[in-house]
């Protein structure tokens, strides 16, 4: 892909290299040998780094998942016990159900809000206002989930929080946000969506911008307007973006930890305990390192399944221009 922009720098760049190395003329064959020799140099930092810090640890995790190990005493081989505990230990199985439920609700909300706002921002408005909205929706992405959870925890306090105070203005009695299972789950979802919808929003404005103007003009000529045009024209053209945005949001949401850790520590009950929280608790509070590994592997399998599903879906259903 060469663009006019890049062409201008092409000429300067090539001119400079010419003047820099005028005399040395090496035959081409040698170059390709040099090229082959140089490949490891380019790849080594990334490939060796990944081998050490990702691939070996995964193999280690797989091994560890078949042992019971508290780090202090010798590991004990337990076969598939750690995996069966995922089904048999209600705390763990509930945490997986919670995670899946969380993913479904949070991702739906995140995509819905993001899409609605992305479509609305396309309409006519002063340029500065558009920039303001875009910046505002994007802003939470730069914050740390831990800090966000800290101040949101205060905002959702049952007795003294601003949220309940605002609800009281319209006559709604104090909601026990963080102290009842439903309330706490709702807060974790809301806080998560508040921070992450901007990401999907960005994807959607990118996707909407890539729909050629002519398509809309043509459909307008055919008499399609507003909502109808959105459903029949925009949405199908946007479907690749929707698919990518939903997969990325799902993978992210599957790994949710910071919000429930800071806001609720998984409670009340098990209502906000997620799979990653159980990994943390098993490993670093209960010294069940084998079980933590097993849970992690199942989580990874889930993520891989969703990614594989994306590849299949994108072949079948998504409308490509």
């Amino acid at each position, binding site marked *: 892909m060469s663009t006019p922009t890049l062409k201008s720098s092409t000429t300067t760049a090539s001119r400079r290299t010419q003047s820099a190395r005028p005399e040395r003329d090496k035959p081409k064959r040698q170059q390709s040998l040099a090229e082959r020799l140089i490949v490891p140099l380019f790849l080594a930092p990334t490939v060796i780094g990944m081998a050490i810090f990702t691939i070996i640890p995964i193999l280690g995790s797989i091994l560890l998942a078949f042992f019971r190990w508290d780090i202090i005493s010798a590991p004990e081989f337990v076969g598939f016990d750690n995996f069966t505990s995922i089904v048999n230990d209600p705390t763990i199985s509930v945490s997986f159900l919670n995670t899946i439920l969380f993913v479904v609700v949070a991702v739906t909300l995140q995509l819905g809000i993001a899409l609605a706002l992305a479509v609305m921002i396309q309409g006519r408005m002063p340029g500065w206002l558009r920039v303001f909205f875009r910046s505002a929706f994007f802003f939470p992405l730069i914050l740390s989930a831990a800090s966000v959870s800290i101040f949101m925890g205060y905002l959702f306090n049952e007795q003294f929080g601003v949220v309940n105070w605002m609800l009281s203005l319209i006559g709604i009695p104090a909601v026990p946000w963080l102290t009842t299972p439903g309330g706490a789950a709702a807060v974790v979802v809301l806080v998560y969506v508040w921070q992450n919808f901007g990401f999907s929003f960005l994807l959607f404005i990118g996707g909407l911008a890539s729909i050629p103007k002519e398509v809309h003009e043509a459909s307008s000529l055919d008499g399609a307007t507003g909502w109808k045009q959105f459903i029949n024209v925009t949405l199908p053209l946007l479907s690749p973006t929707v698919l990518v945005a939903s997969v990325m949001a799902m993978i992210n949401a599957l790994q949710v930890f910071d919000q429930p850790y800071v806001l609720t520590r998984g409670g009340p*009950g098990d209502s906000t305990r997620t799979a990653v929280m159980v990994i943390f608790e098993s490993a670093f509070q209960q010294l069940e390192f084998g079980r933590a590994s097993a849970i992690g592997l199942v989580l990874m399998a889930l993520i891989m399944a969703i990614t594989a599903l994306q590849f299949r879906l994108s072949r079948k259903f998504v409308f490509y221009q």
Partner: protein
Amino acid sequence: MASEQPPGSDQHSVAQTFSLKNKSLAKAGDLSRRTLLGALGVGAVGATLGAWPRLTGADIPGRNSSALNVAILGTSADAAARQALVDEFTSLHPDIPVRIQAIQGADWRDFFSKILTMVAAGDPPDVVYVATEGAQLFAEKLAEPLDAYLTQDAADVQDYFDDVHPSLIEAFMYQGSLYQLPLDWNAANMYLNTSALERAGLERPADNWTNQDFTSMMRAMKQSTEGSFTPYYWTNRLFGGVVPWLYANDTSFLTETKATGGNWFWDRFYADDPTKNQRSGGYQWLEPNAEDPRVIETFDYLRELVAEGLGVRPEGGGGNALVGLFASSRIGATPAGGYWVQGLHEAGMGADEFDVQFFPSWRTQRHQFGAAGYAIMRTAKDKDAAWEWVKFCASKPAMELAFPTPNTTPTRRSMVNQQLYSTTGPEHWKTFYDTLDKFPTSGPIPAPPQQAAVETALMKNVSTAVSGSSAQVRSAMGTLQRDLELALRSNA
């Protein structure tokens, strides 16, 4: 979209996106960019070299030294506050360098998991300040019993035991051995907001008040106060949550038994104590007891308090803003120990604006307490040196250095005196130590070696139990019973 393509096929989108920026930057020329990259590389190498001590932690004072490494829960400010203590110890034992390492955590469970992480990382401290919550975890897995040292230095430590209530010591006995000398402790007493009491037209209740008296007091407070005010605030954790009520109702969520043994200790150090014969080789919490009718009754009582709007639904974690809420008179009563006095004082509460009373009675009036002291790790480099530290810290001069303000209750009875509370209040500061002296059956926080799992199980079911119907209490207790059975089988 290129997502359907196998990796390796040509994709151009990213460069496309950047093309506009390229235009402006390209004008600046490749040379300056090359300089930029070079500068970045040199800068990175320079920063790595310059910050190497920081990157490797080598700049942390005393790290990797042979000094006696003492881990405490707190911040570096807390570590610095112990400098006088360290200096005093160094002047007595110039041959034993000491390094205090503050480990941060939101609660003791956090702190213990950090200590376990240190063990896992192969760099455990030599001595750890451990609270009741972790006493048995450490005794079971990590700590060295003090028995031999106590026998050897009996004469040196006798004055400590003369000054400390035996209940506090018994809490650190495990299977007949003593693992820690507790230095500070706190009972779950009831803090009362004086202005809330006055508004309700009430006096500080009598020592033997009942839970029914408590309910009436909360009702009166609620009726007499406008606006955002909750009579009873409590937190959801092992200390000061549901457990004091369980103890008052003569039960607990775990079956409490006592280990045999320990006579060697009681006969030697508490020979004259009238309760000597009730003392044991330590507490044992081996079985869950969540479906006991009294446990259900206790949870139901708390549920009713919540349902009637007299008590908050307990929050998990530390109950962050508690001091601020109490100090600004948005709370009428809350369970806390002597550690709270300094915090309230600093939050601007006058000595007469709050007071303290025993927890109300129910079937009995047994109280809950927690304590803490230094434990020597089995992996300690020099256990004799570690014992010198433990022994020194239990001496009265050292404890006076360690606890200058009432931000906790010293275990030495002689130090819980008028002078300590002269500027801060409360008026009835004697309540603190009387919780032990008048109620010798008062028991420690129930914390078996599997404390983390047990606390998690309790906390998660407390909140479901108290925020629904009476039937929900029963089902929550069923879940608690099952969760505790699993918890008691876990590693730690």
